[in-house]
């Protein structure tokens, strides 16, 4: 039944117990997880564990084969459009934090259309709208207007903005919104507040229950994830998978996606508490694929060329390309302030060629706004 919430389920787990149980996984547990027909959350823990670090090659083979069986040799392409860096939150790790003395920009409709023109010329059909969390500057009303204006230009529109109410999501879905990305950043309830001291985002439960509001609103796809580098990534990823499992079972008409934002250098001075290296990120991505054959796994331009080029065969199904992470970055302003620095700065065309050279097909369009009535 759907009366319970994930917040309640989450509260029934103890962070430290989970962490210890992951670190206690053995070589045998990993081997068992690798041959399981239907890996469960205990198997996922094993695949996340330090013990699995000696099994990356086996994990890679399995992850590649599952991904190809489910998705074929394809990579979906999307591009972010940063609309605003205005933000009322004070996330200690973020370049957009209210506490940072940066120039705040919210694009006008006219400016957005200038950006859209450049993005369309690059060939994109899937667009991700991004804003800071500032209800007055770039809240629901603003987004609604922007979606109305740009909808004719794109076949799939997604957003990564502040969590909203169910009725607000319903209205945006009616306008053609397809996917919403909301990252919990960390599932560690005790530590959450230290990263998000003020603003609406400091409410752990409200953010955690965004998935439920989206599911009830009938969204097509939900993207979740944690910010790698804040807390122990293995434990945080277990809770992300628990969240995924809950949402898949409860809002079973919706598709899901996992992203892997990893802390990179930015305008603030925050350094990762628990750094995640390339081997570990690869392990995590492959662990997800082995655990869940159907979930979309997305890798942004935060990651390096070499890493992206190799991981696209080992579990990843969606990639951004040509991204500018500052509002106006495509056409309006030459130089504002970006949220994070891009590690892969190749053009979409170059990335398309790279994907094809590996024998994969680049998917530019996988939806049609006409399908939403």
């Amino acid at each position, binding site marked *: 039944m759907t009366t319970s919430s994930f917040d309640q389920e989450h509260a029934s787990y103890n962070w430290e117990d989970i962490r210890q149980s992951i670190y206690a996984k053995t070589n045998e547990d990993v081997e068992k997880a690798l041959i399981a027909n239907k890996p469960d959350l205990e198997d996922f823990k094993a695949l996340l564990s330090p013990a699995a670090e000696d099994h990356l090659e086996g994990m890679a083979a399995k992850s590649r084969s599952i991904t190809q069986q489910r998705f074929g040799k394809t990579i979906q392409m999307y591009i972010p459009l940063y609309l605003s860096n205005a933000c009322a939150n004070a996330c200690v790790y973020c370049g957009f934090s209210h506490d940072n003395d940066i120039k705040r920009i919210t694009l006008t409709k006219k400016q957005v259309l200038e950006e859209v023109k450049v993005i369309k010329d690059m060939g994109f059909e899937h667009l991700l709208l991004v804003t800071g969390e500032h209800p007055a500057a770039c809240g629901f009303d603003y987004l609604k207007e922007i979606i109305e204006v740009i909808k004719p230009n794109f076949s799939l529109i997604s957003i990564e903005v502040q969590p909203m109410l169910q009725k607000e999501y319903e209205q945006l879905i009616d306008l053609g919104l397809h996917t919403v990305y909301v990252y919990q950043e960390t599932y560690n309830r005790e530590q959450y507040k230290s990263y998000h001291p003020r603003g609406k985002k400091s409410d752990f439960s409200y953010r955690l229950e965004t998935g439920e509001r989206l599911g009830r609103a009938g969204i097509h796809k939900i993207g979740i994830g944690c910010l790698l580098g804040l807390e122990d990534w293995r434990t945080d990823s277990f809770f992300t998978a628990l969240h995924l499992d809950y949402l898949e*079972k409860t809002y079973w008409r919706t598709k899901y996606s996992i992203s892997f934002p990893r802390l990179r250098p930015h305008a603030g001075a925050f350094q990762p508490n628990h750094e995640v290296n390339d081997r570990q990120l690869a392990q995590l991505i492959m662990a997800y694929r082995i655990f869940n054959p159907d979930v979309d796994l997305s890798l942004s331009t935060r990651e390096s060329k070499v890493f992206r080029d190799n991981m696209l065969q080992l579990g990843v199904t969606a990639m951004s390309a040509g991204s500018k992470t500052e509002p106006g970055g495509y056409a309006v302003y030459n130089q504002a302030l970006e949220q994070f620095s891009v590690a892969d700065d190749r053009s979409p065309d170059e990335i398309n060629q790279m994907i094809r050279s590996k024998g994969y097909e680049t998917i530019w369009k996988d939806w049609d706004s006409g399908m939403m009535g």
Partner: protein
Amino acid sequence: MSQLKVGEYTFQSRLFTGTGKFASNTLMEEAINISESELVTVALRRVELNNESDDILRHLKHPRINLLPNTSGVRTAKEAVFAAQLAREALDTNLLKLEIHPDPKYLLPDPIETLQAAEELVKLGFVVLPYVQADPVLCKRLEEVGTAAVMPLGAPIGSNQGLQTKEMLRIIIEQSKVPVVVDAGIGAPSHAADAMEMGADAVLVNTAVAVSPNPVQMAKAFKMAVEAGRMAYEAQLAQKNYGAEASSPLTAFLD
């Protein structure tokens, strides 16, 4: 072995049984007793509602046994709701096995009427266990309207064909948030054990016991098979190894 929870009810036994087709009510009682089944379904239409010493019920008076009245015989949601209310009044239980099969030949359940009736019965406070096709989407729809379990079929009622719907049952078990009871088609203890090993929460067996030349011994065999299957599921089966080793390193770029 873990207990089974269905709504507010908990059960030690994961073998649900039926009361039809036995050669005598005495034999039925003996078979059900040896099966240690705690949930026994009885067709409302077979019970003499105004007779406190109804013969079937008299043979089911045992502290371990919960009655699970079923609506077998109704053809629409409306009839099912009416029958359910009669059953609740007569047998003093909110438990209800919802069966709507308008087709008199194979007794296959009508998904549309079943979903409608389930929604209404849940609102009326019934603990609803619907008998349905092994249809994963229908099972999720039933869960959403608040049924306490789902009871997908393995094969047509009374056919003893085993788990013909196995791949669909696998998906239902994977996705369900309520107990999955495999109902109908289970013709041998090995079928029951198979369902339990897959992770079904319980099975309901009637014909295979009732029409066996030795129903009592067969009931015991089913009890053992259900327990064995559940124990194996909880212990976790060893997996077949399909793993292939990569011939060239896929992860060299990480070095």
